[in-house]
C-alpha cells in the first residue's frame, strides 16, 4: 500500500493534535493518494544482503527467552496519548467498494473490498509508530475497521454502535493509533462481521518489533510470507449483500429528504439507545428482525470456497525456499472456521501466537489456527521438493464441494533440481 510517512515536527505538532481530535470525532476528509496492495514477501527487518543464513543445525539451542513477564500484556505506550514531535506517522487511504472478483477462472462473485483487493492491502509498520487511516465508504452498506489485537484507544476500535457510528455511503472516518503490540495481526470490518469478512473486508497488519525480533534472532530469515485464511458461502454472501445494499439504497435515498429522514427511527434499523428502550419496544408490539414471523428458519452459513490470501487452490500463490534457508510464515485466520495447517515432509517451529512469542517454540507439522487468531511458524529448508501445505480439516480442501481445491498451497524448493528432484506440478481440479 502506498503510504505517506511523516515526522511530526514542532511546526506541525499543533495541527497534528487538531487532526487527532478530528479522528476521535466523526472523521475528516483527506486528500492523500489511495492506498494500494502491498506484498509481504521480503522482510525489511531482515539482515542485509550478504549476511549468511545461520545453518539449520546451529539453530536448535538459541537462547529463546522462556521466562514469563507478568505485566507483558500492558501497553508500552499509553493508548490515549497524542503524537509528539519526532513521532513517525504512517498515513494510509482506504476506500471500500463493491468489486467483481474472479476467484477461479470464470468463477466471479461480488465482494466488498479495501482498495479493490481481497484481502485488503497489508499494513506494515514499526512498533511505536503512529498509523493514520482515512477510510472512505463507497458502498450503500455500513462499515468500520477494527484493528484486531491492537492496543488502540477505545474510540478507534471500530465497533459500530459500540465505539463509533458506522460509516455510511460516501462518508469518511479517520483512525489514528499507535502501533502496539508487535507481531502478526489483522484488521477487518466489524459491521455484520460474519458477512463482511466473508465479503472480503480483511487484511494483514504486521507490527515489526521496535527493538530485537526474537524470531529473527533465533531463526535468521530473509523471506517471509503472510497467509490470510478465510472462507465464503457465496450463496449466503450474495443474499446478504443484496439485502443490505437494498436497505442501504433505500435509506440513502431517504437521506435526501428531511421529511423522510424524520421517519427513520431506530426501530426501522433495529437500533436502540438502551436495553430498556429495546425491551419496551418489543413489549409494545415492535417485532424484532430475528423473530420467526420476520425471518422464518435461520439462514445457515455453509462455506463453499476456502481461501489463502483471497484465492482457492489452484489459484493460490506458492511459497519458495532453498536448502538451509529459514522462512517465516505468518498465518492469520480471518474466517469463521478452525484451520489446521499441515506441511508435508517437514516439521516446523511454531514461534508466535496472536503476534506474541511463545514461551518456547513448539515443533510440529500441523498448527491449529483458530478463528480470529494468528500463528507464526518457521519452516526450515531441510527436504528438497515441492510440498503441499494445506488445511487438514479436509472440508476446506474443496471448491464448491469438489476436491482438490480450497485452502492449499505449495512449498517449492528453488534448488530442488540441484538436489536431484524434478517436480512438475499437476493442476488437478477433480480427484
Amino acid at each position: 500500500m502506498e503510504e505517506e510517512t511523516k515526522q511530526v515536527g514542532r511546526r506541525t505538532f499543533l495541527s497534528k493534535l487538531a487532526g487527532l481530535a478530528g479522528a476521535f470525532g466523526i472523521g475528516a476528509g483527506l486528500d492523500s493518494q489511495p492506498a494500494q496492495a502491498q506484498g509481504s514477501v521480503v522482510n525489511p527487518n531482515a539482515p542485509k544482503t550478504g549476511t549468511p543464513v545461520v545453518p539449520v543445525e546451529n539453530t536448535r539451542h538459541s537462547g529463546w527467552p522462556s521466562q514469563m513477564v507478568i505485566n507483558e500484556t500492558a501497553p508500552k505506550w499509553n493508548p490515549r496519548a497524542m503524537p509528539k514531535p519526532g513521532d513517525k506517522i504512517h498515513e494510509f487511504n482506504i476506500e471500500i467498494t463493491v468489486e467483481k472478483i474472479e476467484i477461479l477462472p470464470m468463477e466471479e462473485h461480488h465482494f466488498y473490498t479495501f482498495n479493490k483487493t481481497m484481502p485488503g492491502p497489508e499494513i506494515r509498520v514499526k512498533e511505536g509508530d503512529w498509523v493514520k487511516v482515512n477510510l472512505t465508504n463507497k458502498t450503500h452498506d455500513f462499515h468500520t475497521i477494527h484493528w484486531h489485537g491492537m492496543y488502540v484507544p477505545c474510540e478507534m476500535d471500530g465497533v459500530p454502535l459500540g465505539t463509533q457510528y458506522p460509516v455510511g455511503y460516501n462518508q469518511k472516518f479517520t483512525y489514528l493509533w499507535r502501533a502496539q503490540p508487535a507481531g502478526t495481526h489483522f484488521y477487518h470490518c466489524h459491521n455484520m462481521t460474519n458477512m463482511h469478512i466473508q465479503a472480503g473486508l480483511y487484511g494483514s497488519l504486521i507490527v515489526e518489533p521496535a527493538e530485537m525480533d526474537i524470531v529473527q534472532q533465533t531463526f535468521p530469515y530473509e523471506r517471509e510470507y503472510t497467509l490470510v485464511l478465510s472462507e465464503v458461502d457465496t450463496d449466503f454472501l450474495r443474499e446478504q449483500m443484496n439485502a443490505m445494499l437494498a436497505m442501504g439504497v433505500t435509506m440513502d435515498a431517504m437521506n435526501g429528504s428531511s421529511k423522510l429522514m424524520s421517519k427513520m427511527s431506530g426501530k426501522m434499523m433495529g437500533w436502540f439507545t438502551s436495553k430498556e428502550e429495546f425491551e419496551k419496544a418489543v413489549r409494545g408490539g415492535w417485532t424484532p428482525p430475528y423473530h420467526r414471523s420476520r425471518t422464518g428458519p435461520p439462514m445457515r452459513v455453509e462455506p463453499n470456497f476456502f481461501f489463502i490470501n483471497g484465492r482457492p487452490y489452484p489459484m493460490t500463490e506458492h511459497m519458495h525456499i532453498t536448502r538451509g534457508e529459514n522462512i517465516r510464515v505468518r498465518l492469520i485466520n480471518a474466517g469463521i472456521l478452525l484451520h489446521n495447517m499441515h506441511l508435508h515432509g517437514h516439521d516446523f517451529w511454531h514461534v508466535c501466537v496472536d503476534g506474541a512469542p511463545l514461551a518456547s517454540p513448539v515443533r510440529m507439522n500441523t498448527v491449529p489456527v483458530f478463528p480470529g487468531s494468528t500463528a507464526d511458524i518457521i519452516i526450515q529448508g531441510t527436504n528438497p521438493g515441492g510440498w503441499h501445505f494445506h488445511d487438514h480439516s479436509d472440508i476446506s480442501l474443496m471448491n464448491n464441494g469438489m476436491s482438490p481445491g480450497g485452502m492449499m498451497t505449495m512449498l517449492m524448493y528453488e534448488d530442488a533440481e540441484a538436489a536431484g528432484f524434478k517436480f512438475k506440478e499437476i493442476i488437478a481440479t477433480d480427484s
Partner: protein
Amino acid sequence: MKQNRTGVALLALTAALLPAMAHGQAQKSPIPEQPSIAPQIELDGTGIGTLQLSSPRTTLSNGVRSSNSRINLSDSALLLGVSQQLSGKTGVGSFVVGLTSTESNRSPSGTDAFLHQLYLNFQSRKLDAAIGRTDTGTRLVDFPTIRGDDLNEFVNVLNPFSDGSNVQEHRYSNQATVILHSSLRSSLNLHAQNLITTTPSTVGQGGINSYGIAYQYQELDALAALKKVPLWGAGFERRTLGSGEGGASNVLYGGLVYNIAPDPVDRIDLRLQDYYAFGNDTRAFGSVTDTFRADGNTIALGLRYLHSPFGVPGYQVSLTAGYKTYDKVRHADTFGLALTGVKRLGSGFDLVLQYQYQNRQSAYAAAYSGVKDEHSIQIGFVFNFTNTFNKHLGPRRSLLNLQHQYLPD
C-alpha cells in the same frame, strides 16, 4: 436348490428391470446421458379464500335486485420453477409449471384448475427468451385489488378469442417471447401468441393469432417507493381475427405507476393504464365475446395508500376504478370500482376486505345475462409465499447486478 435358482433368477430379472423402470418414470431427454445437475428449485404459492356476497340487478322487466353468496377460491396458485446455470456461464435455463384456480362455468363446482404457467426460459444479461404458457405479452400494470382478475374488463387487455367462461384466458397465453434488456431496467418485449381460443368459431385453433411489441422501464426494487415513476411502459398488439369476426383487432396500450408521495413508510401511489382497440368492425354485441373484440377505449386507475411502519408493510387501502366505452356500439359503456383494504397479520398472510361495484349500460348488460349493475363484498384471507431450495443462483435484477456489474448467476 431349485428355490434358490428361482430366487437368483428373480433377482437377476429385477436387476435388469429396475434401471428400465427408473428411466420410464420421466420423459427421455434429447441427450439422455447426464440430463441435468441438481437445479435450484423455487416453490411459490398464493392462497386466496373469501366469503363473497353479491347483489346483482338485471335489466329485465321485473328488474329486481337479487342476492347470492359463495365461497370464492379463485386466483389461488401454486408454482414450481427449476433453474440451473448453463455451460460457460452463458446464462440461466429455467422451467416453470403452475396451476391456478379459476371460476369456471364449465365446472359443476364453479371452481376449476387452470394451467396458467408452463414455459421454458433462457436468461442472459441482454436476452430473455421464453416459450410456453405464461402471462400475456400485454400485461403491464398490476392493480391493488384482491385478485388479478377483479375488475378484469378494465385492468386486462381482453382476449377476443375467449368465450368468457374462464377469466384466466385473458391473462395467460401460449407464446414465444424474446425480451431484449438494456441496463436491466429497460426491456423490449417481442412476442407471438396463441391467445386461448374457446369461442365456437375458433375453438381448437392453436396457431399464432396475436403478436406485438412492448417496452417497459422498471426501477430498482429498493427505490420503487421513492422514485416518482418506478414503472412505465407502452405497447402495440395485433390480434388476427378473420373477416367473419369483424377483422383484425389492434390494440395500443400504455401505463405507469406514479408515486404521489414517495415514501417507504407512508406511500401513496397512482396506477394508470389505458388501452385502445381499433380495426375491428363489430357493431353490436351478439355474445360476450363481441365485447372483447369491438373497438373502444378502456382506462383503469388505482389509488393506493400503503402504511409500512419501520419499513415493514402493515396495512393498505386502495381504490381501483375502470371505465370502458365503445366506438361503434351505442349504450355499451360500463364502469366499475373496487375499494380494498388489506391488513397484514404476518409476513405474507393478510386479512382482506373488498367492496366492488360495476355498472353496465343496456347493450353491454345484454351480453352479461342482462345484469345491469352489481354490488359485491368479500372478506377473507390471502397467503402468499415463496421458497427456494438448492439456492445457488441469484435473481438477474438483483441490486448487485443492477448497480455493480452483472454476473450471470
